[in-house]
């Protein structure tokens, strides 16, 4: 077995290029790691003598062919002399495989190109909004269809997802709400103490947590936790053609994959919201006691007498809507995944950002709505 590759591990000698007797003489080892020191901007020559070359690999052969091409461009017919048969084979292979000219760089975009790009992006954005609304419609129709024929509901899947998005999220959600309660009490106390109105900290905590923060922050955590998980799970199924396999088996991916996730989220987000409310009030009460000396008994009686239960209702009524947003966005983005891993990653992050954005937008709309109603 004959081979032309470098066989020895000894340190290669420096390649050199010089002009002698009207020809270029190459000397040394022409290898991947050594040719960088060469200056290829040589004068063209009729002869390229490589008889003194030690080792030659594809990079070295590339040097030889480049020199040959330069000579040809100058109108000469260069000859390569002194090559062993293996070396000339290698040089011939490289000559055959060397692309002719470098592809010219892409033209710089003009203003009209940029305008076109803006237009395309706008249309694409509108189109994907339409598609998402269409997806929402299909999911809602599927869920209603399931309610009409309850024997088709996949209880195992729903319970599984309820555990994933609900039960497993309880520690993080309650810790987060507890800390928010602590922070509110702490900050509220600092301001209210100036007016001697420390006891109003109870109203501050109760209303802000029950009405807004408890459910909003829970939804944000769930969007980051479960929305991204939905996108990743459905997206990787899409990548491995599992979704197509389901369709060929006559299974509707919306019914099998999306509906259980959305239903589980709609059922569990209110529960998580209630847990967050309790944890937040507990944190607030604890901090009020430590920081302001508002005893738990006082906190409790003020909470009951001053805070209407409607605040709790206003907060909690938003939960199913937030759940729907997170579920729909997470599953929709998952279904958009194409064949490569790159799109899975970017769509997962899109899913989280978009669902948090939409949850906050929805919260703002609810605020306006309740303000108009005067609740």
């Amino acid at each position, binding site marked *: 077995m004959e081979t*032309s590759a470098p066989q020895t591990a000894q340190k290669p000698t420096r390649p050199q290029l010089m002009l002698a007797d009207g020809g270029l003489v190459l000397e040394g080892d022409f290898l991947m790691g050594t*040719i*960088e020191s060469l200056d290829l901007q040589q004068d063209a020559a009729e002869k390229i003598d490589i008889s003194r070359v030690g080792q030659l690999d594809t*990079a070295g052969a590339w040097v030889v062919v480049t020199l040959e091409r330069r000579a040809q461009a100058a109108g000469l017919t260069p000859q390569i002399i002194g090559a062993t048969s293996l070396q000339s084979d290698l040089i011939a292979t*490289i000559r055959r495989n060397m692309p002719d000219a470098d592809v010219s760089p892409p033209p710089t975009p003009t203003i009209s190109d940029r305008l076109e790009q803006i237009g395309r992006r706008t249309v694409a954005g509108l189109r994907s909004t339409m598609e998402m609304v269409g997806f929402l419609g299909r999911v809602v129709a599927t869920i209603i269809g399931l309610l009409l024929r309850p024997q088709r509901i996949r209880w195992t899947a729903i319970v599984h997802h309820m555990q994933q998005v609900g039960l497993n999220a309880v520690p993080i959600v309650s810790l987060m709400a507890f800390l928010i309660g602590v922070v509110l009490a702490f900050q509220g106390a600092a301001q209210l103490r100036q007016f001697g109105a420390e006891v109003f900290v109870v109203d501050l905590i109760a209303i802000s947590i029950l009405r807004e923060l408890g459910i909003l922050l829970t939804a944000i955590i769930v969007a980051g936790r479960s929305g991204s998980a939905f996108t990743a799970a459905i997206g990787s199924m899409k990548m491995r053609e599992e979704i197509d396999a389901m369709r060929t088996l006559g299974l509707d991916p919306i019914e099998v994959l999306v509906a259980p996730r959305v239903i589980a989220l709609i059922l569990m987000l209110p529960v998580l919201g209630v847990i967050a409310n309790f944890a937040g009030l507990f944190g607030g009460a604890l901090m009020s006691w430590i920081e302001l000396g508002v005893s738990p008994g006082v906190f409790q009686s003020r909470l009951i007498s001053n805070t209407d239960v409607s605040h709790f209702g206003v907060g909690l009524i938003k939960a199913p809507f937030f759940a729907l947003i997170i579920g729909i966005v997470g599953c929709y983005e998952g279904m958009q995944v194409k064949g490569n891993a*790159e799109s899975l990653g970017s769509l997962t992050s899109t899913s989280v950002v978009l669902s948090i954005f939409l949850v906050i937008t929805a919260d703002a709309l609810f605020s306006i709505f309740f303000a108009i109603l005067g609740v």
Partner: protein
Amino acid sequence: MADDPIISVRGLVTSFGKHTVHDGLDLDVRRGEIIGIVGGSGTGKSVLLRAVVGLLKPVAGQITVFGENVRDTNAEDYRRLRKRWGVMFQDGALFSSLSVQQNVEAPIREQLDMSAETRAALAAIKVRMVGLPDDARPKMPSELSGGMRKRAGFARAIALDPEIVFLDEPTAGLDPIGAAAFDELTAQLRRALGLTVFLVTHDLDSLHAICDRIAVLAEGRVLATGTMAEMQDVDHPWVQAYFKGPRARAALAQKESL
């Protein structure tokens, strides 16, 4: 020098949990040959490849490549060793965020200090050498067919002019014409670059067409090594079934008719 094995595996033991894959496996690969590693599913062909290139730590045994121990090298030695081999994984394992050109340039960029123009020129040659058209270079891996991805993976494996290339099932999933073209490519690049090829395969046609020797993996060790003709005489039920089954006869008949 010529008779020193370029890869030598002695007493290799690998296991996943309680499941032992290799149990005292010995294998020698000679310089410049194409060795085909065959074996049933789950006999650890790919695991052997991963152990030899140092991706997987074996429980026991010695693996030397170029006379250096792969297991006990420090990071610097391993880096140096790694420059001298290239690996092509089953589906090419191209970096999905880089174009074909950038994929082939990646090993050069990491290992050598080379100007961008030289690097691009060398990568372009490698892309052509594996039979991809020039317009494939700016494409992303997701835009390529399976066969093109494998070729691009091959181009990346030979980017640094390695002495050994490891190919993991290069013809799996290719149509017969594409598979034959890939075999031809392997043989041609071996001639042009003086490669040693470590070929994990199931493809009897590849074994017939390009392999100098074949090593059969079964029962946790190398059951037999030898040429295709020698395999016909190995007295083991699996080897008999593999090399004398209907597909093997078809491959043999095809070769003889050429």
